[in-house]
């Protein structure tokens, strides 16, 4: 094969086309950011009292220019929920994206691998029996128990997936087994629970943003802000892992170390939001798939894409949850499943070549 002498036009072709595609992806990310801002504003405007977008924007930019009632509703009632939707959506989506990456499994997500189910069991344990896994204040009992159980489930999945001879299918089956196990344990607790505790457990497992508070938002956001630079630092390596363990290792990637580090971060990212807002399924599964189909798996675009798609998905769902019956806010976990699943189907069927 002759090494063809550099032809200037051909030499430019690949480079220029790559640059054009990268610019296009940046435009998509910008469009997603704009859509998220719009969704956030609508989320603030929507509710039993409906405000115009101009009123919401005025309340955000110059609170003194709007009435005290609008100010209170936008800033004190709706803002924590709207921000929590974005932060939780982003965290769950990133957790799902990196789980799918390092486990090489399109079905991996906090929900499908039993982490949400483990958190539900932990929360129910606190609600029904007041048994604390760690000695903490009563107000933190539910989130701390949920967090510890979610962490245990994540690490269990990780260590099993690291064992010699364990295939990707085995890990998924194991995740399903965890879902069934924790659901059975949850049912056991529900059976024993008082009527009051039972309704609290059921409400918790449905997932809801209505109990969002600024400290909870702060903790979830802090975990996200710690996780993202660590993932960003390994962007090339994480993308390489999707080419297979041998190939990544041949590029000089320390696959074992990156897997362990990533799984530890994921366990925090998945467990913290679930412990605060309950079970919110499908965002961690669907969010990354949307990002992957639109942007591909180069983590430099896939990572921000997953953040934005997850945040957008949950923000839109938050709007939907209060639009079905005026005056009623449905638990968001119900809506994510109702909205997410058909949306997921249509994406898979419409664009198969860019899915997994």
């Amino acid at each position, binding site marked *: 094969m002759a090494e063809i002498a550099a032809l200037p036009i051909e030499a430019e072709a*690949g480079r220029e*086309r790559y640059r054009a595609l990268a610019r296009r992806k940046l435009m998509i990310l910008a469009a997603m950011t704009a859509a998220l801002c719009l969704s956030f504003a609508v989320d603030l405007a929507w509710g039993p009292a409906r405000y115009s977008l101009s009123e919401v924007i005025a309340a955000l930019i110059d609170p003194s220019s709007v009435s005290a009632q609008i100010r209170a509703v936008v800033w004190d009632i709706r803002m924590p929920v709207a921000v929590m939707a974005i932060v939780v959506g982003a965290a769950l989506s990133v957790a799902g994206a990196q789980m799918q990456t390092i486990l090489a499994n399109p079905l991996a997500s906090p929900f499908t691998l039993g982490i949400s189910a483990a958190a539900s069991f932990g929360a129910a344990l606190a609600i029904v029996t007041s048994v604390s896994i760690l000695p903490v204040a009563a107000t933190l009992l539910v989130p701390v128990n949920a967090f510890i159980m979610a962490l245990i489930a994540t690490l269990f999945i990780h260590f099993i997936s690291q064992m010699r001879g364990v295939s990707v299918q085995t890990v998924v089956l194991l995740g399903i087994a965890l879902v069934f196990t924790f659901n059975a344990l949850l049912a056991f607790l529900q059976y024993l629970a008082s009527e009051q505790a039972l309704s609290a457990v059921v409400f918790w497992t449905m997932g809801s943003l209505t109990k969002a508070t600024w400290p909870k938002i702060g903790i979830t956001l802090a975990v996200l802000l710690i996780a993202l630079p660590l993932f960003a630092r390994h962007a090339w390596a994480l993308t390489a892992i999707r080419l297979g363990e041998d190939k990544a290792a*041949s590029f000089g990637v320390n696959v074992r170390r990156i897997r362990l580090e990533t799984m530890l971060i994921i366990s925090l990212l998945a467990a913290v939001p679930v412990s605060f807002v309950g079970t919110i399924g499908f965002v961690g599964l669907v969010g990354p798939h949307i990002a992957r189909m639109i942007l591909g*798996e180069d983590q430099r675009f896939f990572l921000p894409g997953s953040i934005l798609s997850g945040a957008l998905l949950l923000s839109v769902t938050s709007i939907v949850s209060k639009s079905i019956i005026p005056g009623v806010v449905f638990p968001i976990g119900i809506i994510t499943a109702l909205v997410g699943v058909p949306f997921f189907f249509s994406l898979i069927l419409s664009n198969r070549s860019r899915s997994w």
Partner: protein
Amino acid sequence: MVAMQLQSVGAYHGRKLFVEDVTTPVMQAGELIAVIGPNAAGKSTLFKRITGLLKGPGNIVIDGARTRNAITYMPQDTSANAVLTVYESILLARKQGQSWTVSDSDLSFIDEIMRALNITSIAFRDLGALSGGQRQLVSIAQALVREPEIMLMDEPTSALDLHRQVEVLDFMQRRARSKGMIVMIAIHDLNQALRFADKVLVIANGRMRACGNPRDVVTVDMLRDVYRVHARIEKCSMDHDHVIVDGTAH
């Protein structure tokens, strides 16, 4: 210029010593070394040991390397279902451990390698849409853009048609000479090995059987003992030795 020698090298798979006592003459820059042997003889294991992916006894002595990561290994398995274009997957190989920004020189080098391997037409196709042979060529490009000084290629031509096999081996031979690389290629086609290799290393049952000049190593006796075939070795029109297999030996 880089030089490499294996001294009593072995490799563990789990707790089992799968390859043992491989000692080679000094392999010099510009040389192409064919590693031959039956299936499951230990060729891939030896490559993984040299790359550092497996542990084992012995010494791998490398002199004159310009960088710490002088060795690049091209694995046998080229399948991938990642949602990436060919171009992105090659860029990925080049940018490992570096910043997010991609320079024009990075992209120009990728373009050069893709042109040399004749794969520019598939540059923006998804990896999942490639044939086995195309995946193999992409895998070679991924290894080359890392600018290795020692390149270990595990059956790089097994899915290629005859024309492409000759193209790739010819290209690798010339690339080794022009860039001062050591290229080790695990290969099953003994005639290609005889045509392109400067040295041949024979491995069977995890042990090295011979290593040296192709004419000295690829003999009728070796073919009978290692491959269990009756064969003749004749000169072809290009003055290379040529193996003609008459049948299997029991």
